[in-house]
């Protein structure tokens, strides 16, 4: 049994330690907001925060997480910066199919937590790992700027 600290709550997970955090969240804990897109760190759909850092949960085994605090899309709204990002996303109507957007929002929230006033280059660098097949990039850029102004 492995204990994961997700969105401030401890959860006991009965799965082998090599299980990627992504699948423990989705299949064991039923927290399906974190998405599977590629499984090889190419798309960012599975992005969560581990101790405040944006991490690809398809690449992180639950055996290596230890006591670190995990935040998922289900919990990001309870931080200031997370709530601002969510609101900017809605104000600018960024979202299309939405499948990539959990990951986009998690990456954007991590960026703003570390760099409250990112440049265009900072935004590109922080967000280039998150693919959006619907092509919402133009609005993602604007929404990140809007969230910083809020």
């Amino acid at each position, binding site marked *: 049994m492995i204990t994961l600290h997700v969105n401030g709550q401890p959860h006991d997970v009965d*799965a*082998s330690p*090599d*299980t*990627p955090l992504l*699948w*423990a969240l*989705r*299949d*064991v804990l*039923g*927290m*399906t*907001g*974190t*998405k*599977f*897109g*590629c*499984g*090889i760190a*190419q*798309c960012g*759909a599975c992005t969560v925060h581990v101790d405040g850092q944006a991490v690809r949960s398809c690449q992180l085994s639950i055996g290596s997480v230890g006591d670190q605090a995990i935040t*998922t*899309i*289900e919990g*990001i*709204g309870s931080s200031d910066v997370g709530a601002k990002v*969510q609101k900017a*996303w*809605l104000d600018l*109507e960024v*979202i*299309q*199919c*939405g*499948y*990539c*957007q*959990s990951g986009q*929002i998690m990456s954007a929230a991590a960026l703003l937590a570390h760099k409250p006033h990112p440049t265009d280059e900072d*935004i*590109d*660098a922080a*967000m*280039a*790992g*998150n*693919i*959006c*097949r*619907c*092509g*919402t*990039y*133009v*609005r*993602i*850029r604007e929404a990140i700027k809007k969230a910083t102004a809020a």
Partner: protein
Amino acid sequence: MEKIATSEISKLSRRALLQAGAAGILLLSFRLPQARAAGDTFAPNAFIRVGNDDVVTLVMPQVEMGQGIYTALAMILADELDANFDKVVLQHAPPDKAYNNPIFGVQATGGSTSVRAFWDPLRKAGASARGMLVEAAAQQWSVDPSTCRASNSEVIHDASGRKVGYGAVASLAATLKPVSDPKLKTLKDFTLVGRPVQRKDTPDKTNGKCQYGIDAMPAGVKFAVIAECPVFGGKVGHVDDAKAKAIKGVQQIVVLDDCVAVVGDTTWTAIRGLSALDITWNEGANANVDSAQIWEALRTASKGPGAVAKKVGDVDAAFAGGTHYEGVYELPFLAHATMEPLNCTLHYTKDACEVWTGTQVIGRVQEYVAKALDLPIEKVTVHNFYIGGGFGRRLEQDMAIKAARIAKEVDGPVKVMWRREEDTQHDVYRPVYHNAVSASVKDGKIVGWTHRITGSSVIVRWLPPAFKDGVDIDAVDGAADQPYGFPNLKVEYIRAEPPAVPTGFWRGVGPNNNFFTIESFIDEIAHREKVDPVAFRLRHLDGNPRLKAAIQLAAEKGNWGSTLSSPRMGRGISAQNAFGSFIATVCEAEVDESGEVRVHRLVAAVDTGIMVNPDTIVAQLEGGLIFGLTAALFGEITIENGRVQQSNFNDYRILRIDEAPKIEVHLIPSTEHPGGIGETGTTAAPPALCNALFAATGVRLTRLPIDRNALAGRKPA
């Protein structure tokens, strides 16, 4: 791949379809489906439910896959119904002919048809229901209904100051005769249509609550991943499962004739189990098929006689004099690469089956799962979901059929998922196309034009009545009805199915191919005639004022003719009318010494008729343009030894944010019937880009994806 029974579309008139074009505007005689709900709820038609509790529920006949259609269709209904939009509840439609798309005669979402097809029926449905609610209130008050009005889910009698909520008159309204020809609002009376309205589906997409098919979690669900023979059409030979079975959590290995699935307690154990299997495939007849053969076969087929899709004037006479131009344009196979990989969850219990999935064709999923499981169709329940990208991939039901065959072997509910690699390698691909075009120019104008399209027919399988006399109505869409009104025109189609590789609809469908060809070729002719490409197009558009206006606006907003900031940059334009919309797009792109391309800016001007939710239209164009750029810059599926060589986002590239251009979209107000917008940007971007690259380098690219080697080292033109 199975042919769809023609019976379900027997009512489809081929003539009507031909007149309309596959993506044209056509409404089959549409009667409002009858009410089916019983009791005290007011359910005057398939789309509207009013409860005694005042809750107005709108049932969505088209699926939401990012295009904002739930909001747009709900706006149309709610506006005519005078419902309180903030409180309406949306529901996915179940499989039922009542929700058939009037353009296809099939319960399907695609071809940028949703608003075009449902604009009239939903307005009537809303207005008719509003009329009945007003009538009921008037009866209750013993006043003339014409002295009452409706607003925000209430009927109001101004003279007496009385008001009643829809819920309170729902039961009475349900006893009234439907108004068959209700009075519709005029444009100026709309309170929702035409205004930017916050989408209904997006709040839950910011917090993890939104459920896609892949998120279905019926109690006790098990998780399966699938492996299909990497060679198209191959079969399972032998499976050694000893190592897989030894993995803790691996519950079952399902071996079917053409695929293998491992069932586990999590997706991860299933993935590990699948990796541990030792599968020998019988690769079968396609084991030697490769891209070179496919192209050779396509080019050979292109020489054969074509079926005539359109003939205007006398092409031979037009080519008797003048300056002649010829061109050949080709497009590759493409995968859909929806962000949500293919998946389908089923619970099979000998005499019934429940299905959870996100699909563009829920009726077909029900029908084909029933067939696969040998069940009566009414024993198959299908729950539709929000879709994490469709783009045509979910207009197919192959994934549901395979998942059903697996679920038949599993005790309890099972979620069958395709890993990204399997999704990429077992797609139905946008066909390879070959286009031969020629034009004759006299006195600075094109007087003769021929276009011969060779490629696979998706229609013949998907909508058989729309294929007749050798012509695929979709494959020639945009070519047969080209925008420029050339006085002498001949468009031909040659059906050529590639060996082994299954083909399907892909965002932009036929117009993708045809506008890449037309807009590249006309640009080439303008250049060789030494005429500005914008001026040259405008010369031919006196009969097409909407497209003319779009080009003029795009040229103005895109600073056409002004000097660019770098000599390595070029500016190109494309124009098209397709899907009932008129769009012109100006692209600025830069080519470096190595041939690498950077797209800086896209400026589009679009006339799409009446706009329901203008901000969604802008969003769809932004996204569609990016989708088209991805295809032009990176998209190609290649075949070797009968198998797809690409597998995941590392080798099937999708444009990323640091590569995305600035995009400006300018909307042209219009009172024409609404056009389609989901695919409009996708078809517009590639020719605009290639024309910009030509302007930058003098290299005319005639195939996609762009060939960086051809661009490398070229001096600016």
